[in-house]
């Protein structure tokens, strides 16, 4: 049991626990914090997979900006506990097991995928900078069109959010 294996299982356990907390939490703010926990553990898993740049981007953008936006909206709207509504009583006993069957089906097919045998070990920090340079070269050469299209997409999102959230004057 070496350190990468222990770290992987620890992070996997915490990630799954966070996801279960997201489902079981009664207040939306607790769900939001559970999701931040899942994202942080996923960042550690990206580090184990040898992608430190993506780990940093995940924490800066996803956990540090998108989830802050979620937390803001929850605080602004004063989102309370989950309400009880009248869905059929049969939904939970049938639906939840079927949901888990779906989950197990996903897991089985991914386990059986052709790359299953490959080994992942956290690469040393020797070629981090070179990987970042290669990643940026790919982003600006091969994938230049998606990059520019995404920037226009973000501009549209900003305009859309501004127009939608503006008070009717």
């Amino acid at each position, binding site marked *: 049991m070496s350190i990468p294996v222990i770290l992987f299982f620890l992070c996997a356990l915490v990630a799954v626990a966070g996801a279960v907390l997201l489902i079981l939490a009664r207040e939306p703010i*607790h769900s939001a914090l559970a999701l*931040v926990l899942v994202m942080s553990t996923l960042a550690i898993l990206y580090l184990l997979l040898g992608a430190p740049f993506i780990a940093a981007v995940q924490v800066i953008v996803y956990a540090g900006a998108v989830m802050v936006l979620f937390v803001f909206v929850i605080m602004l709207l004063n989102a309370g506990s989950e309400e009880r509504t009248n869905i059929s009583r049969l939904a939970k006993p049938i639906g939840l097991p079927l949901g888990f069957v779906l989950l197990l089906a996903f897991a089985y097919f991914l386990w059986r995928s052709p790359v299953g045998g490959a080994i992942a070990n956290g690469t040393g920090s020797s070629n981090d900078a070179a990987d970042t340079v290669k990643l940026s070269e790919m982003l600006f050469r091969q994938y230049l069109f998606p990059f520019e299209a995404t920037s226009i997409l973000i501009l549209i999102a900003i305009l859309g959010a501004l127009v939608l959230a503006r008070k009717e004057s």
Partner: protein
Amino acid sequence: MEFISQHPVLVAAVVKVLILLFIVMTALAYLSYAERKLIAHIQSRWGPYNVGAHGLLQPLADGIKFLFKEDVTPPASDRFIYTMAPFLALALGMSTIALIPFGPPSVRFPNGEEAFSVADLNLGLLFVFAITSLGVYGVALAGWSSNSKYSLLGSLRSSAQMVSYEVSLTISVVGVVLLAGTLNFNDLIQSQHGYWLHFIPRWNCFPQIVGFLCYFVAAIAETNRVPFDLPEGETEIVAGFHTEYSSFKFAMFFMAEYANMITVSCLATILFLGGWLSPLPDRWTWQIYLPGAGLLILAAYCAWDTVAEMRGIARLQFAVVTLIAGGAGLLCLIPAVAETIKGPFWFTTKILAILFFYIWMRATLPRFRYDQLMSFGWKLLLPVSLANLVITAAFIVFWPLLRHP
């Protein structure tokens, strides 16, 4: 003992972390003392003077007070988040110190580990920004969980301010990264080696002066200090997001704010002021005796105070401080020790200079109104940082002389 020889990296890391934690906690406490003393002297009064020699035991007294105060919890608060928020703020504030190199990487422990940085990552700068961007949660959750109008409003304003100025902070740093071509802290410092015209050190604050000013202003806003401290100003909104906190949790927020200040000062030093490089030319070999000389001058001042003091207990305290300063000064005059501490000495001096600016501004400037603050951040600071980035990038592309060899 076999554990130590089998896992040298782990043991060295644990030792470094413990020493660094101890130094950082002491520095946080004495930073609050320094702030009170400096603001007092700017306002023509003495500040803490009675508790120890020159008030040096004041942080200890404050710590004991915080430990023994009554811990009041608002009744309708979200108990888990209320307790967790200050811990989160303090933990995040202190984590970035692990990535900062305090001295040159050439100084090593006997087993080959770097002595002056706990984690020398190739993407160190990016991880520091990742941790500071998580710092918004401490503030936002503290205000929400206190279940009070003032706290919620203060925390919303404070987190909106932190998120806005974080963008300018990150962009103003990219110019430096372009010039140096790396995100590693030690390489960033090494790229500022050398002199122009034989006496101006090749620090990044000179070619990137706009970036430095943008970074400094954004850093002050990011750490919620004057003139950007409306969310926690006492005359405006009681105490903002930490209104409902008392005793030790309040002390943790307090320490988290100072830890953030130290973090952004460390970053400013590394990126713009040359880190652990000395501003004096390398051929002046006598410069390694400067820390020792400084400590001996401090010891002489305390000796004079010992003689001039009338009260017995205070005289004893001054004598103790004299002995400690004198012993440390003599220790630093040994050439081997002086060579080793040359890097950390200059690093600490630069950080203290930046912190002095912070405290000076707190004593001098009035605060911004919230809408002035937000329009300043988005309408002035962000375009200026972006323009700095674009101009730096244009220079690097079109002027090969500027490119890092």
